[in-house]
């Protein structure tokens, strides 16, 4: 009897190890296959030339520009909405707003792209443009930012709020001096996740950003924006070895951006954990 239980135990953990290997293997395999395919295209020319030549400089700059736009639009609104849900809203309105924000999180990205195209690009006559692309991406990632901000603020011990109220601090300075600084690392790691998602998205951008072989300009309307995921997708359909390598190189660059964001997120999240540990004493 005892041995049977021991065997079951072994089998169970063996299955768990297998499962974890199945989780780890794809990401390793993907990194290797992308790096292998990208190898012929990697070089200085990748960063010094645009897609008109043999580089992807314009796409890299475009992606960074889109990330900046998302940070400004979705970052501001998302954090403010999260603060509202955690600190100001109450009762029924809080529940309703949170529910709709969660529904928005489940919105298929192609639906956002489609509506972005029909309304922003066509009806509003913005054309394929930076603003249309940034708004489409922002709608996609805003719910994540709202959620992480709300959770971050809820984790701030209520002792701090009570202490501030006891000292007679008005709510805006309680928020600005105590709650937000304490929750800032956790909020930032939420923002980083949102940026990571934005880096990898193609569906909402396909019909809002367009593409161009020139470097992106700081123009909100009527100026198409090149970006990395588009290069990955379209160059793959082109004939020849060179475009395939360029496509893989664009994938490699977006993976590098992703890894940088993940590492930044980890550092910030580590600080957040230390912060809350210190506060809860």
């Amino acid at each position, binding site marked *: 009897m005892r041995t049977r*239980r021991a065997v079951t*135990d072994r089998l169970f*953990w063996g*299955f*768990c*190890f*297998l499962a*974890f290997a*199945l*989780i780890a293997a*794809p*990401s390793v*395999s*993907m*990194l290797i*296959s*992308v790096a292998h395919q990208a190898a012929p295209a990697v070089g200085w020319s990748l960063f010094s030339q645009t897609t008109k030549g043999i580089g992807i400089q314009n796409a890299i700059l475009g992606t960074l520009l889109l990330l900046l736009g998302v940070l400004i639009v979705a970052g501001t*609104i998302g954090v*403010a*909405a999260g603060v*509202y849900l955690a600190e*100001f*809203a109450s009762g029924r309105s809080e529940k309703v*707003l949170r529910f*709709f*924000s*969660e*529904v*928005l999180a*489940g*919105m*298929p*990205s*192609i*639906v*956002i*792209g*489609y*509506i972005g195209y*029909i*309304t922003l690009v066509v009806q509003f006559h913005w054309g394929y443009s930076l603003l249309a692309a940034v708004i489409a991406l922002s709608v996609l990632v805003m*719910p994540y930012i*709202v959620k992480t901000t709300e959770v971050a603020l809820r984790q701030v011990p209520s002792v701090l709020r009570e202490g501030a109220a006891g000292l007679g601090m*008005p709510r*805006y300075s309680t928020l600005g001096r105590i709650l937000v600084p304490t929750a800032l690392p956790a909020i930032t790691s939420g923002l980083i996740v949102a940026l*990571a*998602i934005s*880096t*990898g998205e*193609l*569906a909402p951008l396909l019909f809002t950003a367009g593409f161009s072989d020139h470097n992106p300009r700081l123009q909100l309307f009527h100026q198409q924006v090149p970006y990395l995921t588009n290069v*990955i*997708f379209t160059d793959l359909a082109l004939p020849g070895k060179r475009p395939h390598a360029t496509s*893989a190189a664009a*994938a490699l660059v*977006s*993976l590098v951006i*992703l890894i940088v964001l*993940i590492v930044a997120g*980890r550092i910030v999240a580590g600080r957040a954990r230390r912060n809350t540990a210190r506060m809860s004493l």
Partner: protein
Amino acid sequence: MASVLEERREPAVAPSLSARSRRRSELTGPDRALGAALTVAGLIPTLALAFLAYQMVKEAYPAIIFNGWHFFTSKTFTIGNLYAPIQHKRGYAAPHGASYGVLPLLVGTLLSSVFALILAVPVSVAGAILLVEKLPQRIQGTLGIFLELLAGIPSVVFGLWGVYTFGPLLSRTVYKWVDSLGIPWLSGHTGAGEGLATASVVLAVMIIPIIASITRELVRSVPTVAKEGAVALGLTPSETVRYVTIPYVRTGIIAAAVLGWARALGETIAVLIISGNALNIYPHSIFAPFSTMAATIAAFLDSALTDPTGMAVHALAQVGLVLLAVTILTNFGGRLLTRRFADQALPVGRGV
């Protein structure tokens, strides 16, 4: 008389009134301005959702009228012959031969996402349990990077990997073997690995990080006291997981699975690359090419814009509306399930 009434009513009303006015007087000017600004921000996600839903219905409306029930009974999706005379039906015009049927796309979306879910849930839960319960803290953090990496990899890269590396590998090995078993619907021409099976496996890989990372946090939140109790009763580690950890986190796993399901339903580009883009047929075997609603919208939008009557674009909006409805229904279903299981999920007793 009136004054007496006033006096009698006052005690009942006064406390709440004074409490409210006191709270208001506590707020300074900047407080009120900040509150107003944050309220506006808090409304924006909801307004964005309302705008999206309104535009979707408005865009789809002509197609809803034009198609009628045909939309849900036909299996043919074609934008028609753009060079032939235009046909009119129920007050709307569409190219000759145009037919918009969502059924194969709906079937493809549901099949691929459900297969993905069936594959992903056990793997994610087992992996997360291993990560938290068995591995030392130091390695936990490092290995957790795999989850974040998988979660952030662009779906185009998943698509390329599926079509060039993973699909062919599966086709050469696993699919050959499954095919040789000769089970109906599980055997057929395996091809180069494009199709329903590969798409489901890749979708599973895409939703694993969502389910696994939530499960990881849940497993971490299981109180140590309960686990110590199990160990003290002589349970083996696997029995502890089965009788203590799993019941404790079951509700959360359902919620995580629903989140993953929503991602699988709406995934566009990866499926577009891997599915083989079969139109107007149901997958006749698990290896057969197919298509989903999201992938079809992305694939068709360019050509739909060439339709002079505009009906093709409206029909795609209707497809998007169905996709949206399915996503929201799964969301609601998940909520109901978690509520139903919420009472049963506490055999350990919270706050022990």
